[in-house]
């Protein structure tokens, strides 16, 4: 089997003296959508932050595109083609929708045709209508779309997507699922943090379950759906 696009082994991370991750191991292959599931505080977001370099890992390794990127600055990891969509969205609210996309713009590292604001507007028609408007005037769902679009402007090969369905109306969640599937069709791999099993199962090929900072389950999405024991133990609230 080919080397995975993203390979995380024994990743450890801490906030000050509070350790959060105790050796998470997972991988993401080219073009697949993988869900990282778990309850609040299980370590999902921390895993993504540590992969991205936003939080310096205290142990373990991260390899992306066959290169060891552990401890790299976030911008260098991003330039290798890893995109990051944070849970809090972190839209630049002082900037217009178009300017937000401009901040994310980055030339593709392979020969692919780059994403442009216009192609993204065709996927997210809501954004097209408000391109000149300040991002502070957007609804939560629109902001979530903007963060995804902003990340795609960087022409990533893989995207770390943190709880895209959180706090959104069901109709918007549907659109989010559409967006994830669209990325998959474009050949972009997605590592998706989710608590919403319905959403995750609609888009993911495989799943990991994390609890107390370590991976407790690994398998296909179908296996997870069939395994009531795992779901009871780690996912239901």
């Amino acid at each position, binding site marked *: 089997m080919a080397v995975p696009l993203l390979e995380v082994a024994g990743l450890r991370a801490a*906030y*000050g003296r509070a350790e959060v991750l105790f050796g998470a191991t997972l991988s993401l292959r080219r073009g697949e959508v993988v869900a990282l599931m778990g309850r609040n505080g299980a370590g999902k977001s921390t895993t993504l932050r540590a992969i*991205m370099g*936003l939080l310096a890992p205290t142990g373990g390794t991260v390899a992306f595109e066959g290169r060891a990127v552990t401890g790299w*600055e*976030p*911008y260098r990891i*991003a*330039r290798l083609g890893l995109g*990051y969509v*944070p849970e809090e969205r*972190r839209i*630049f*609210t*002082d*900037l217009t929708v178009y*300017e*937000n996309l*401009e*901040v*994310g*713009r*980055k030339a593709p590292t392979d020969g692919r045709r780059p994403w442009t604001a216009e192609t993204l507007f065709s996927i997210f028609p809501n954004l097209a209508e408000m391109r000149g408007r300040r991002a502070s005037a957007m609804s939560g769902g629109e902001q979530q779309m903007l963060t995804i679009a*902003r*990340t795609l402007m*960087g022409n990533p090969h893989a995207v770390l997507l943190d709880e895209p369905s959180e706090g959104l109306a069901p109709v918007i969640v549907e659109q989010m699922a559409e967006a994830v599937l669209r990325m998959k069709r474009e050949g972009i791999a997605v590592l998706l943090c989710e608590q919403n099993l319905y959403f995750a199962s609609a888009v993911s090929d495989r799943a990991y379950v994390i609890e107390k900072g370590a991976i407790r389950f690994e398998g296909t999405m179908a296996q997870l759906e069939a395994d009531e024991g795992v779901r009871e133990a780690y996912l239901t609230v």
Partner: protein
Amino acid sequence: MDPAFLVLQSLSGLASASSLFVIASGLTIVFGVTRIVNFAHGSFYMLGAYIAVTVVPRLLDLSYSPAAFFLGVLISALVVGLIGVAVEVLLLRRIYRVPELFQLLATFGIVLVVEDLVLKVWGPVDLAGPRAPALRHGVEIMGQRFPAYELVLIGVGPLVLGLLWLLMHRTRFGVLIRAATQDRDMVGALGVNQARLFTLTLFLGASLAGLGGALQIPRVPANSHMDLAVITDAFVVTVIGGMGSVPGAFLAALLIGQLQAFGILVFPKATLVLVFALMAVVLVVKPWGLLGRPEAGSGRVLPPEGILALRRFRPPEAALAAVAVAALLALPLLGDAYKVKVATEILIFALAAFSLQFLVGVGGLVSFGHAAYFGLGAYAAGLLVTGPLKAPMALALLAAPLAAGAGAALFGFFIVRLSGIYLAMLTLAFAQIVYAVCFQWVEVTGGDNGVVGVWPAPWAANRTVYFYLVAAVALCAILGLRRMIYAPFGYTLRAARDSATRAEAIGLGVRAHRWLAFTLAGAAAGLAGGLYAFQKGSIDPTLTAIPLSIDLLVMVLVGGIQTVMGPLVGAAFFHALKDAVMPLTEFWRLLLGLAIIATVLAFPRGLAGAADAIRGRMGRAKPAAASA
């Protein structure tokens, strides 16, 4: 009043506003992106003026034309921009993640270094610049003459604002600056090299400061005091406008320009006070300035810098402290008069530094203007004994802490409403008010010369007797403050420092406690100031000035900001060193500046962080315990 006069006055206000905006816009852009309040911005401004008085005349020799003049101004600005790049790459880049107090001190270190270098390169004499060709005449406006160059300056402000607007909205660099001002970590996660962005931002900011300085040369000769004079004005503009907001800076500069132009008619002696009073009012009504916004929760998660764990002296430490005090008290028996003088000053500064540590280390209130209260005490005592009252020394020493405490209560009322960098800026602004009053109110304070003849009462006139008096008073005051640190009052302050919201949530009155702490610390500093006035025999405005505030912070820092008694050691070390080294070198400021910068670079996570690192290296997992 004559309408023509009012129009001209207003125009002259616009010219000052324009100059001020050019400088402040650079400061606010740099702050927005790097979150560093850059004292060195004043140095950039000064360098702009000095480089322009060097470059512009050469160009005018080649071609005596306005084009050559303004080309020289632009070249000066760009050279300063490159100096800004050097400062970013060599220093600022290394301190983006250190506590604010350390950042401010490090950039102040640059100020000290540049001041001495400027004196070395250009000499101590003020250098008048050439006037702009074709703009030397006056233009007739409503029957009055107004300098043509000032009219050009009035145009420069809006021109720079317009160019900056285009840069910020029409270029990728500008969009990235605006994005980074809001959330620089997210900008990094999107693939933007922050280091490069910051370097370019410093180039832009320093160029604007240099431009501001270079444009001043026909109006003001280049001199080595321009840096601190302009930096406080620029701070005030950025704070009133909202830190990080360019349009806010423009608005604030206009306000201040007009306030100064017309304020001088109403209160000719109080122009400086008016400006700072405006700042205080704005901050109380809009704590983040006119167009600023609350700092987003992005980024900085730093442990508080200060006393983290209290413990009492262990027996060996108590013995050591007793020996140190005994040695100090025995000094007059052994040393000569000079040593007694130095020891007396050390005791006085120990009290002042300890009172600052009470604010910073315990209360988390980073004051950049603690000299104000020291100076208030000194002036209260000095004026009482020399003024018409001819009060006795005992009364004066009682009045010193009372006056300083009253001043601290008044200023503190506003200061404790703020936090972080805005709080530091307001303490600085209030200190500048005190300085301005001492400097401008010549009839009472003697202005720049101060007042001489502040001698102790006859019974304490002997140096040794005065030394013991100071020792008794200072030690009692220090022990009193120390008692408060260990009392529930001190615990409350530390709780409020670590998390104001959580402290409020458990029912602690954060603001009231901070206010009281500020007042107490001010009173203690005032007592030290009173003692100092009699020690020195005179008072003058330097006792209230920024360099003394910085000295006190350095004492706290050197002694250990996370220790209770460390600042006393810091005061002794720093004052003794200063006393020994300063007469030997003409580069005291340069050395001090480099020492400050080195300290900040050596302990990038703060001193507490360094202690943690050492503990980590020694492999002990014990929780941090600060020395008592």
